[in-house]
């Protein structure tokens, strides 16, 4: 099996709990390469926990996570080299400049300064922030910081990009720019994307959708499959029906 045939990310029976509270319960799904997958879930659904497990921030308690065939638990270095991440919380160093943040990230991946400067120039040009390269991050707007974070996630040329609610706190234009840029990465560069959100309008008809609710995958498939599962006419109605229906089901004694 070549790397192109392996799933970009394969989550197999993953469960995770914080003490007695179950955050994820037997989560299983996989994403094919070069697709834009949306992890759709309400606040507290377990999206951030799942991302933390994918990025090895937490140890996998039960189940298995593989990135292009590499197990995050046993071959974490190989797996993490193929992933770029944008967390919900901003993780840029505000006291450093844009270019310094990028060079620091590159160094953490073993990329030398000469190479990282060239790559930084390239990614900054792609996100139209070349003119702010030497500005301190704290002087950027929220949308610009997000773009820098995406640029940073792409600096080591990952095959999989995972983004945890990257448009939270952004205005309409910045949201559209951000999601448009990431979608272009899928089409032009063949990057696989796992995009976590609770905002329905970020879902496109071509996307692979995973509906996560209270730590469980309710449905996974194309938009049409989600609509069919919920017997709804649009994704908003389907998501509402699925999540409210699931809540009603858990309330039944």
């Amino acid at each position: 099996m070549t790397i192109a045939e392996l799933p970009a990310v394969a989550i197999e029976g993953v469960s995770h709990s914080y003490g007695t509270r179950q955050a994820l319960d037997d989560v299983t799904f996989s994403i094919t390469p070069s697709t834009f997958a949306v992890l759709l879930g309400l606040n507290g659904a377990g999206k951030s926990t799942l991302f933390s497990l994918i990025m090895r921030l937490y140890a996998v308690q039960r189940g298995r996570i593989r990135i292009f065939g590499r197990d995050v638990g046993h071959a974490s270095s190989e797996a993490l080299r193929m992933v770029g991440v944008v967390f919900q919380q901003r993780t840029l160093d505000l006291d450093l400049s844009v270019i310094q943040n990028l060079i620091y990230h590159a160094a953490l991946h073993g990329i030398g300064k000469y190479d990282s400067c060239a790559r930084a120039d390239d990614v900054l040009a792609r996100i139209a922030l070349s003119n702010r390269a030497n500005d301190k991050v704290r002087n950027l707007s929220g949308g610009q910081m997000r773009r820098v974070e995406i640029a940073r996630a792409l600096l080591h040329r990952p095959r999989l990009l995972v983004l945890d609610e990257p448009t939270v706190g952004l205005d309409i234009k910045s949201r559209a720019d951000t999601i448009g840029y990431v979608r272009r990465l899928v089409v032009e560069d063949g990057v696989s994307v796992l995009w976590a959100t609770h905002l329905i309008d970020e879902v496109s008809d071509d996307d692979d959708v995973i509906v996560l609710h209270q730590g469980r995958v309710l449905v996974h498939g194309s938009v049409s499959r989600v609509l069919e599962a919920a017997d709804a006419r649009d994704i908003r109605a389907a998501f509402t029906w699925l999540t409210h229906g699931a809540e009603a089901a858990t309330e039944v004694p």
Partner: protein
Amino acid sequence: MTAELAAFPKVTGFLPVHYAICLKGIVWREGLRFLHQRERFVAALVRPLVWLFIFAAGFRQVLGVSIIPPYETYILYEVYITPGLMLLIQLFNGMQSSLSMVYDREMGNMRTLLVSPMPRWFLLSSKLVAGMAESLRQVYTFLAIAWF
């Protein structure tokens, strides 16, 4: 697109040069942060300098080490306490470095470090080396000021 993906280079392990680059990057970043936090730099130096210039200068006539082996001459109090002050700088810098890690964790910067594909033991060791490098920088700055 499939061919494009297949053309990706094979993922191999890290070479020693990659570790060296990572270590250098962490030390460089800690150095930059330290330079940007000037008040921290000044605060770290003020304490031992106050001790050296006020207390030691004041007590130099009454305190000192007599001419006893292994010393062949009278040791002034400010000379006697300088190694202790160097250790004082390193002690407080160690505390500052620990607080800096807590700050990094609170601000989310620690995640950048933790999602690095480098082994965790190496990342932690690099942070410690970076802290040591900062404390040595302060010690040499202190010695330079004390010399004059």
